[in-house]
């Protein structure tokens, strides 16, 4: 009998002897079943709606608050200050962004580096897909913990003439501190009345769902 066989036999013997042996995996799956029953597939909810009129170059330019609403807790978005620029390029409208994270606790201090992103092509119907390079966001902007976040995301939305917002679906992955799929997430840019004056109520998707007003637990210690 090899040592490996001995270990296997002993482990099995011990496991068999457990009466009422817990089944953690079974409980994990049972919760998923209950959740799926209550929330039938909602992946992609909050996606952008079609434009009646496509925005013109410079029409949407200005200062925004950008809410990145991850599907794992949609009402606790990562917030950014955003400067939106649109201009007419060789192939059509182009969208450029300058993002800087906002402190998750005071919700007004800009933290970390500025990300200059784009230009991204905008289709004639106003739709766009903006594939961001990996963004390394400081832990100060993380609404859940102090951990810095690295994410590779793409935004899919439309630049519509009406309104003061840009919204749509967000896909991709958080790669640090852990691998998390962001499929089913949303985003929304909401125009600021003046630069740096961030609203207390932030919308997180095209439906206008409001983020939690209460500060996250990490900020209340």
């Amino acid at each position, binding site marked *: 009998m090899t040592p490996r066989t001995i270990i296997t036999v002993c482990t099995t013997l011990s496991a068999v002897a457990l009466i009422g042996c817990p089944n953690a995996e079974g409980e994990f799956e049972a919760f998923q079943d209950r959740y799926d029953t209550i929330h039938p597939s909602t992946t992609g909810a909050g996606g952008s709606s079609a434009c009646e009129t496509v925005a013109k170059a410079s029409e949407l330019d200005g200062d925004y608050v950008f809410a990145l*609403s991850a599907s794992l807790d949609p009402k606790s978005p990562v917030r950014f200050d955003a400067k939106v620029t649109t201009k007419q390029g060789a192939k059509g409208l182009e969208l450029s962004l300058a993002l800087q994270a906002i402190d998750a606790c005071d919700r007004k201090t800009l933290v970390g580096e500025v990300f200059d992103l784009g230009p991204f092509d905008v289709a004639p119907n106003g739709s766009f897909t903006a594939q961001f390079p990996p963004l390394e966001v400081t832990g100060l902007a993380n609404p859940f913990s*102090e951990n810095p976040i690295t994410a590779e995301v793409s935004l899919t939305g439309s630049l519509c003439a009406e309104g003061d917002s840009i919204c749509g679906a967000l896909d991709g992955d958080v790669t640090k501190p852990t691998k998390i799929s962001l499929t089913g997430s949303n985003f929304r840019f909401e125009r600021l009345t003046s630069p740096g004056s961030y609203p207390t109520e932030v919308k997180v998707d095209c439906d206008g769902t409001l983020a939690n007003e209460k500060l996250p637990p990490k900020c209340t210690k």
Partner: protein
Amino acid sequence: MTTRSSKRYDHLRRSLRGAPLAAAGLLGATTSLLVADAHAAGFATARFGGELGHPMTSNPTAIYYNPAGIALSRGVTIFADGTLAFRSLSYERKPDANAPGEVPEPADGIGANTGKATLNNQIAAPMIGATYALPLTEKLDVAGGLAMMVPFGGSATWDKNEAFKGHPNYPGPYDGRQRYYTIHGSIRSLYLSAAAAASYGNLLSVGVSGGVSLNSIDSVRARSAAIDTNLDTEGRAWLKAKNVTPQLGVGVMLTPLEDRDKLRVGISYQAPPGFGSMKLRGLLQKYFAGNLSGNVAGTDDVELHQTLPDIVRAGVSFRPTNRIELRLMGDYTRWSLFQDQCINNAGEPCEVSHGDDGLKDGQPKPGSENATVVLPRRFRDTVSGRIGASFFVRPGAEVFGGLGIDQHAIPDATVEPSMVDFNSVSLAVGGRYRISRHIAAAATYTQFIYAPRDTTGQSKMPYYAAPSNSPDSGGLYRQSIGVLDVNLQLNFDPAREQIEISERRAAAPAVL
């Protein structure tokens, strides 16, 4: 059979196309583990041998309690033991409404997070051992042995909160009000030990045991990304991890009187499994649900870092007459080694500040920033004591009893339903009967009486820095455990029996 979770894991692995599976620790959210089922302090569960398992014994349980003892046995001894524990535990969750992460129960969720949770479990654990002892010279006896036992561990299955069965809005509360710490779980260190011992001059015995410890954890709990009690965003985290570590024990026994059973003084040391910090490697699966979006599930390749305690045991047994044996014993368990359980990406360190180095209490130290979750334990060393007595009704028939006290290892700040510990008093009664020349059976029933603990307002769990924080675990804990230990011992001495046969033959008249 492939389960749903394992399928999901396979899918994720493929989707990552060989990239290193990122560790545990999702933006601060994750899992917990462990469900302790302590018969003694912390989650030590060594009760094999019943009232006859102690550092002065010579039966095969000595391989764990004091390996020197096996040198006092004779011939071959095979020992099969089963411990059956009947455990009931209740936890009445009474969180501080202002604690970080404490979200008020919604009108249709009253009773989801506050009130009483219960469990009633039966748990069995086997111990098997065999020893062989023989005189090598007139003054030197030697012995060897093998054994399998479970000195640390426990498991728990909590009752459901039936008021939330089939709830139309909240899938989480059905798993009970303790679910933020544990729903189902087990922890175990299974020892496979070999031992060697020698006894010299009928006075001093020394022994050593060693082998491997098979350590495992399998636990699921409720968790949300924000580490709060919001019913809308409640998810689940499941950790399954294991490893194999070395383990070692040494012991000494003094038998100063000519009759080695009359007075025995034993002392032993059991090193921490793995001789220090150990890393259990495994999978962390998460299922976080959002109001507006679909499900997000993930799997990580993670390591759980922890250090289990070492133990010093000592005791004395004395037989003032041939019919009575008195025993006094105790142990000192260095539970202060068990400070945190830290989960991080496999291959990365996982060290946590205790707030004495300029960092926040619970904050990962530099180099450990990717830690997914930390479970602050902050255990304290414990001392336990026990007195016992045996009365030998006649040769081969013995009745015994014992009284013990155990100190709890877990401070109020970190007590939570998966890690509960109490100051306790235990009463044991039992007997041992020699069925035949070679076979004896014994049974011990021990009732542990625990002083209730009310930690309302004392929980520090919500106040640790992420990722060490968890919802408030304050509340009223009550526990009762009864342990039935039964064992069968087979003993024979081939050498002595050969001598007896020879002597009988020599004494018999010649037939031919």
